[in-house]
């Protein structure tokens, strides 16, 4: 078999994933916190203030990375949900469900910081434009997925049902992303572009990119931490889980 496919098979096995995640976690947390510190220092101290918004624009360093993460995590959750539904891989079910609360948290941060930013700049905490509304709907979708997962007793059935809901809700993602292009909204268009020049000075851009990387690391770290605990709970009857529990008990 192709080594990559083989590796994926191996990764799908809970004990292997548990050990691998355990080894990766310190690195992920470390890198995440370091890049977070660098990004925040760069954004809040080093970056020059904006000619129009002066220092208020610095909210961008929290707002925009969390907005990216809110979409990215939903996509991640839906992708894992899809894999879980089609191939019934336990790891994917766990990852999808572990990602939901993190995604909801980022969505909430995005909405809260956006609101804080909107008041001085636009003159309103909240406006019902397409970008803001669809981001709010995204938060509700996260809540729905989490609520459904909590409501069903059988863990695996619960994660399949919740994954299905996540897949249904994925229609909202393009609406969030393209709303500023499709409709003439109060929310401005995207500043940082994958293709073509970004509309931001490079001295302001680099902390933003560092923050984007930091949030990815932090997401990965908290995801793996949560998934490890969930897997242990899910596999509580298995030998490897018992061994882990015994080892932890000895260490304590």
């Amino acid at each position: 078999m192709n080594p990559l496919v083989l590796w994926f098979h191996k990764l799908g096995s809970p004990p292997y994933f548990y050990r691998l995640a355990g080894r990766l976690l310190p690195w992920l947390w470390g890198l995440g916190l370091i890049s977070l510190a660098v990004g925040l220092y760069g954004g809040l101290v080093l970056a020059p203030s904006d000619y129009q918004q002066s220092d208020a624009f610095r909210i961008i360093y929290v707002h925009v990375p969390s907005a990216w993460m809110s979409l990215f995590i939903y996509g991640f959750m839906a992708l894992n949900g899809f894999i879980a539904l089609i191939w019934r891989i336990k790891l994917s079910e766990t990852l999808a469900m572990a990602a939901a609360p993190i995604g909801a948290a980022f969505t909430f941060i995005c909405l809260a910081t956006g609101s804080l930013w909107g008041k001085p700049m636009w003159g309103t905490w909240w406006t019902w434009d397409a970008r803001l509304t669809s981001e709010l709907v995204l938060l509700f979708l996260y809540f729905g997925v989490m609520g459904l997962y909590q409501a069903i007793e059988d863990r695996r059935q619960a994660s399949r049902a919740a994954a299905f809901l996540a897949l249904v809700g994925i229609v909202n993602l393009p609406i969030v992303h393209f709303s500023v292009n499709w409709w003439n909204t109060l929310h401005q268009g995207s500043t940082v572009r994958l293709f073509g020049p970004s509309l931001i000075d490079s001295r302001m851009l680099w902390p933003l990119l560092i923050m984007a990387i930091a949030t990815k690391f932090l997401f990965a770290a908290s995801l793996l931490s949560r998934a490890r605990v969930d897997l242990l709970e899910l596999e509580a009857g298995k030998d490897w889980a018992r061994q882990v529990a015994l080892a932890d008990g000895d260490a304590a």
Partner: protein
Amino acid sequence: MNSPTPPETPPLLEARGLAYLRNDEPIFGPLSFRLDAGDVVLMEGDNGSGKTTLLKVLSGLLPPGAGEVLLNGEPLTLARLSHQVALLGHLLGVKGELSPLQNLRFAIGLGGLRPGITPYHALKSVGLEGYEDLPLRQLSAGQKKRVALARLLLVPAALWLLDEPYANLDREGITLVNRLLELHALRGGAALITSHGAYAYTSGTPRRIRLDAVDREFAA
């Protein structure tokens, strides 16, 4: 379907290493057995041994945790679910607001009609003549069960999966179930019935499988 089945035809139903897990706890299995045309198999097990779950897996309502189910030699998939299977579960699948006749007409519409029988005939042969147009709500639990049994007579399924068919029935009802099973077996059908052991299919010599006896392999 009425001709005796030659030995080389694949079995009507075959389970290979069948097991079901809930939250990684095995509910039953692994279990292997086969049912040929004319077979009536009694699946015995105590309360909670997974009899109902087994019937749901065999009918395709639940995906097996391990192993596979073969119908006429072909694996059970969503697409060819249950064309051959009639399930009578704990819940009878009949509506209290409707009359026996209305319930049966719906069952025929959904599952098709065996040639040479009408809903009236079916109700007569389960002893419900004269109750055709009464709302089911006004009938007793045993009479409701008889309506569900009449459904089995009408739909053209070769394989019956009956979950505790004797529950709620009086002595006469129990003989009725046995008679229906005999008839079905003679016509080339097969049936798998579950029981916790208090009542049993007595006519003929049915094969018995203990569900709680894990790892025991049964070959026909």
